């Protein structure tokens, strides 16, 4: 199965939720997904198109468009196509369904995206800070408008 058939199969299965699809090369495809349905899409990808390997998941901040993108890079152990799946969330209240039920290793990626970007994952088993001290929660340091380390974080080091 090549990249074109995969993307066709995905957009036929979810005609309303998948849009802006693009085949970049033989091994790279990009698609955008409606955030409400991301868990179902991931499930379909894993079970029917053998995309069983979540390479990573992360956020990207676009203050100009007032959006936060959550990007899923999904690869496979059986073929070498890598899918970039993007979900666009409003910057003021970013909320998305967790994909931990489908990809077990999304757990830490989602915790990290939560503490660095403030993306709230619904139905996540254990949503708490991973790499940052707990008193930094709410500063979202990887957003573009983050202004360095306030004294609060410095105190934590002493």
């Amino acid at each position, binding site marked *: 199965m090549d990249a074109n058939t995969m993307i066709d199969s995905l957009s036929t299965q979810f005609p309303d939720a998948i849009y802006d699809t693009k085949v970049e090369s033989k091994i790279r495809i990009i698609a955008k997904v409606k955030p409400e349905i991301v868990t179902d899409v991931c499930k379909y990808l894993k079970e029917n198109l053998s995309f*069983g390997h979540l*390479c990573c998941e992360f956020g990207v*901040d676009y203050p100009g468009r007032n959006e936060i993108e959550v*990007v899923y890079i999904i690869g496979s152990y059986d073929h*070498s196509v*890598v899918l970039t799946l993007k979900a666009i969330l409003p910057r003021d209240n970013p909320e998305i369904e967790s994909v931990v039920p489908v990809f*077990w290793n999304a757990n830490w990626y989602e915790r990290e995206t939560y503490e660095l970007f403030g993306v709230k994952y619904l139905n996540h088993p254990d949503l708490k800070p*991973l790499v940052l001290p707990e008193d930094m929660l709410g500063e979202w340091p990887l957003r573009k408008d983050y202004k360095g380390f306030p004294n609060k974080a410095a105190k934590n080091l002493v």
Partner: protein
Amino acid sequence: MDEKVGPSEMIVHLGPQHPMMPGPFRLNAKLRGETVVDSEVEMGWIHKGIEKILENKTYLQGITIVDRICYLAALTNEEAYVGCVEKLAGIEVPPRAQYIRVIMEELSRIQSHLLGMGEYASFVGFVSMFMYTIRDREDVMTLMDSVTGARVTHSFLRFGGVKDDLPEGFKDDVKRVFASLRKAVDSYEELYSSDEIYKSRTVGIGVLTAEVAKDIGVSGPPLRATGVAFDIRRDEPYLVYPDLDFKVCVQKAGDVYARVQVRLDEMRESMYIIEQCLDQIPDGPLFPEGTAYGRRTPVMRVPAGEVFHRVEDPRGEMGFYMISDGSDKPYRVKIRGPVYPTLQGLPPLIKGVKVADIVAIAGSMDTCTSEVDR
């Protein structure tokens, strides 16, 4: 992990500083008697915020930063980073530079496996092994030093090429070092397979099945030890790997012993790859001709776009996702390290084992906290 402790249970904190650990992370293990019933990994003690730092550095400055993700895999980290920029900007790397990159990255794989294996042996009480491997690793480090001018953080790759050519007499040096290293690798294998105490601590311990490994997202030697032949060098080739002959080293057992065996085999394969490269390497420029790319590329702007580039690190799949907005700094860089999922998968793996085996299992995954904490 549930903090509640039942009768005859207790919570033991391993770390953040512990002789087993290649860097600070904490493993909270709940024990019932000698058996682990539940555990949890806490990390972030040395979080460096490299993803944020890269957003504020120019592309060239970024090369020295990505070195510091993990000093054992500095060159493969650079390859993933530089490869992203090359894909975005459409730079073709000349063949000679590609061969030099492969040589250096395979050397870095050898030295990483040597240190990983030696450290691991010392975790299970086989300290003399560590002395052997660290001695032989020094020869490899000297080889790398002679090309890059640095032992660990090399800053050797450039956009479109490499910083320096191979020095005179490099081929002979490699021949000499590899002759002794081959013997050394054979002797390690002999030592491992003949030592009954070592075998009793490793064979059948920490068994990872292929299904669980795939679920956790493990890559690299721990995955290949479960029988899954997944290697980016073969599955998604970059540089001149398609022209080279090598096999993906696979073991079936999935236990601690198999992981060490995969690393031993990979070192042999890496030596074979380097020898092929030295035989095949063509003459030619180190940078694409007729372009401004060179050792010190002046301010460069990368065309807007997004790219995901992954390479085979000594520990597994290293990927960079880079978003460029057309300026001289990347808009966003995501680093996908191979150890991150492996460390995350530690709690299910050590569930039900004896407390003394935690060290044997965690060590065999060859974790690198520096990379997890990017």
